[in-house]
């Protein structure tokens, strides 16, 4: 008898896990109507029961089933309410991370009823960053309090916010005489508004400059290889975009390889792809140079046609090997998401990594060109080919190696592109014009010119885009480059010194 009783209790403990919660409320979660669902969520959250939290979490993830065993579906409105309810419960979580997420979630939907809870959370809080956000939340909750002193404090406290919604709210507050009769408080609100606005404007500017630099770094990666082959060697290589494509496809192949054989390290496939993409593209580059381009030195028009034909062959080859459709290259986890600088500006990690990567490639090229024997030979051949030949520089081998170097760097650019753009057979076509623009604006034969031109064009394009939209911005940049070249045909930086051909 006793044993049966114990068994019963045990069974109840496991089966009636949610019996502690009001079963009516739990059933109500499966209601068709969102209002009923939300009422149930709010009632469950109010209980503060850890069971309720677990239940809501499952509802949010879509794994909660109703009595018929069907998934209970929720919409954005319900999802928002769940997030709010969970946030209120998590404000007192032991983990600072959870508290930070909770207060951020709450900030969007503050109502005066939360004031006491927020005050309590704020007084408990030890992390300065979360405390500041709680302060802001508390101010938002008490901005319409009956006591003028509390209102004044709230309006003052909001000056430290960086949220665009707070800015709008403060401006409305200043203008709304009916809701706030006290002119002094309204003036303080205006002062706070100016402060918030200034902060947002600065953040906006930082964001624009960042996206400009990001675009610039991509242009630089795409153009740097061309700066060597076209700028230094004078070869108009229309197949340059396809060398980028080879780099991108190498990344894709590495991803497949890692997924199949090293699933534990799949996040690091990009690093493995870097050297491989360099050598793959360099090998193709050397092959092109040895078989076609070297026979056409000094005949720019024929080179142009021949390399254009090569580019078509390479595109078709990619279609044959990888299919005509784009392939999926996923960002590794450490390149997903972003760093929040202010609520209004998030810097995406993949772009930050690419800016860093372009700096790395740039320094690599600089060291190669200025500190190595090969670099010295390349510079010598650039400046005066017959003379370099006379003093024993193997010009034809230098040509091959320099072309391979340029192609390899294009391959590196392809690795970067695979992380932000689509990878497909004709992806290179979209970059060839931009690459030539960068090299021509920068000044033929100058690496420094390419750097400044890439960053400059990137920032200009992004500022214009914010102002005129993407389509007009693209046209405007082209017009700008045409005018620039008219005024300064030698580009930003002209080579100085004695040259044979000029």
């Amino acid at each position, binding site marked *: 008898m006793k044993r049966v009783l114990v068994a019963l209790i045990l069974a109840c403990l496991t089966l009636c896990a949610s019996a502690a919660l009001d079963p009516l409320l739990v059933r109500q979660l499966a209601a068709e109507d*969102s209002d009923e669902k939300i009422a149930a969520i709010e009632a469950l959250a109010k209980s503060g029961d850890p069971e309720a939290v677990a239940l809501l979490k499952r509802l949010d*993830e*879509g794994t909660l089933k109703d009595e018929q065993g069907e998934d209970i*579906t929720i*919409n*954005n*409105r319900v*999802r*928002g309410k769940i*997030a709010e309810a969970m946030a209120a419960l998590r404000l007192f979580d032991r983990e600072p991370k959870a508290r930070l997420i909770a207060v951020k979630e709450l900030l*969007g939907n503050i109502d005066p009823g939360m004031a006491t809870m927020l005050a309590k959370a704020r007084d408990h809080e030890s992390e300065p960053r979360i405390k500041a956000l709680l302060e802001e939340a508390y101010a938002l909750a008490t901005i319409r309090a009956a006591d003028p002193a509390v209102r004044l404090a709230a309006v003052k406290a909001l000056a430290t916010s960086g*949220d*665009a*919604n707070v*800015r*709008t*709210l403060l401006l*409305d507050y200043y203008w709304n005489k009916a809701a706030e009769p006290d002119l002094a408080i309204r003036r303080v609100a205006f002062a706070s508004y100016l402060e918030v606005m200034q902060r*947002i404007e600065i953040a*906006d500017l930082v*964001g*624009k400059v960042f*996206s400009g630099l*990001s*675009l610039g770094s*991509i242009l630089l990666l795409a153009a740097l290889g061309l700066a060597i082959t076209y700028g230094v060697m004078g070869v108009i290589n229309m197949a340059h975009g396809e060398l980028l494509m080879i780099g991108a496809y190498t990344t894709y192949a590495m991803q497949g390889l890692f997924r199949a054989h090293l699933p534990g390290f799949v996040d690091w496939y990009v690093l493995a792809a870097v050297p491989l993409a360099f050598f793959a593209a360099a090998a193709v580059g050397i092959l092109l140079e040895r078989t076609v381009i070297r026979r056409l030195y000094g005949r720019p028009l024929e080179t142009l046609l021949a390399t254009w034909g090569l580019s078509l062959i390479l595109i078709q080859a990619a*279609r044959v090997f990888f*299919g*005509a*459709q*784009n392939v*999926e290259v*996923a*960002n590794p986890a450490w390149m*997903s*998401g*972003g760093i*929040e600088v202010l609520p*209004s*500006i*998030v810097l*995406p*990690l*993949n*772009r930050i990594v690419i800016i860093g990567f372009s700096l790395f490639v740039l320094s690599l090229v600089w060291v190669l060109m200025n500190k190595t024997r090969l670099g010295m030979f390349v510079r010598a051949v650039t400046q005066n080919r017959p003379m370099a030949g006379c003093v024993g520089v193997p010009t034809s081998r230098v040509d091959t190696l320099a072309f391979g170097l340029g192609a390899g760097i294009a391959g590196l650019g392809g690795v970067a592109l695979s992380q*932000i*753009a*689509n990878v*497909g*057979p*004709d992806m290179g076509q*979209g970059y060839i014009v931009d690459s030539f623009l960068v090299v021509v604006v920068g000044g033929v034969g100058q690496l420094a010119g390419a750097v400044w031109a890439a960053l400059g064009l990137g920032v200009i394009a*992004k500022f214009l*885009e*914010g102002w005129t*939209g*993407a*389509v007009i911005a*693209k046209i405007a940049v082209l017009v700008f480059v045409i005018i620039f070249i008219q005024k300064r045909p030698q580009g930003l930086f002209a080579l100085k010194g004695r040259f044979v051909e000029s």
Partner: protein
Amino acid sequence: MQNRRNFLKVTAITAALAAAGLTSFSALAADTIKVGILHSLSGTMAISETALKETALMTIDEINAKGGVMGKKLEAVVVDPASNWPLFAEKARQLISQDKVAVVFGCWTSVSRKSVNPVFKELNGLLFYPVQYEGEELEKNVFYTGAAPNQQAIPAVEYLMSKDGGAAKRWVLLGTDYVYPRTTNKILRAFLKAKGVADADIMEEYTPFGHSDYQTIIAKIKKFAGEGKKTAVVSTINGDSNVPFYKELGNAGLKATDVPVVAFSVGEEELRGVDTKPLVGHLAAWNYFESIKNPENTAFIKLYKDWAVKQKLPNASTVVTNDPMEATYIGIHMWAQAVEKAKSTDTDKVIAAMAGQKFKAPDGFDIEMDPKNHHLHKPVFIGEVKADGQFNVVWKTKGPIKAQPWSPYIAGNDKKKDEPDTK
């Protein structure tokens, strides 16, 4: 003399051979009915259109397995117009006048349809167009099996305005720069104005085809949304630009509970290859989702999955079905029914027989071709993205609704006829 006789002989033999060739050719042609498939298999639209080619081939295979049409097997002629709009017209002409196809299934973007329309008109061909579009057109030679604006765009915006949709007050209309997004946004702007939304609360943005850098746009949306009032984004971005757009959206942490994005050209197929976890809750409006549960849909999904495995399509284990694929499937079946009814593949006879055709579609309804206006009566579903890349239907119409190709929100449309001019 000798030469001349030889010449005569040769001519006679050649003529005889040619005649034999011709008869054998026409004998062969009588055994099969040729149908053209005109979808981009490369370029920026390949991401969306390749699956439609596969669906068309699968449906033709299915019909052939059941004995074909009028006792004849269907023979597919596949061409690749490569996301190149003028090439669409060239390939359409080739299909009709050279390959002598009875019907063409094809096109995705409106610009490609606009480019082939004159060809179909001139040669009196027949085109089945399977994608949602902007309306403002009614061609005698075209059947539209996708949605008109009142079957997709307008209900989606109405949903976002409702309490459950978040009661949006400000709107970002974001699209690729061509005729479909521009016209749809024109209709939506007129609709929003009719609902009392001020011009200052609407932002319109366009990007070129194949655009891949959405940082500025996302920053702009954030800024616009930060000016108070609930904001929603209506996206008519087409093609592979959607991948970088959604990647950037996820990275920037713009959540669906704050600023929902509803897309009209993004379905299950386009979201393959995007990490959808940060995108949970963003929306799409269609007339079909893979997640809809009914026997027809289960059979349709199985048919396609088996087809993908059989054809060894890339990533065959993860293939999905979507709305334009369903519309392609309906279109081919309805055409086959109409040919059986007309007992002919003659364009005009088939057009007459198409009126009122019914088909039990994977969306769960008996779908009907309107007797007059060449559009289907379709149900509307609004879905939210789930973590696995599928959609969760959060709103739907009770049943199929009639298409309005001439949107009442564009001035002057009330005078237009709800049927194509016959000549």
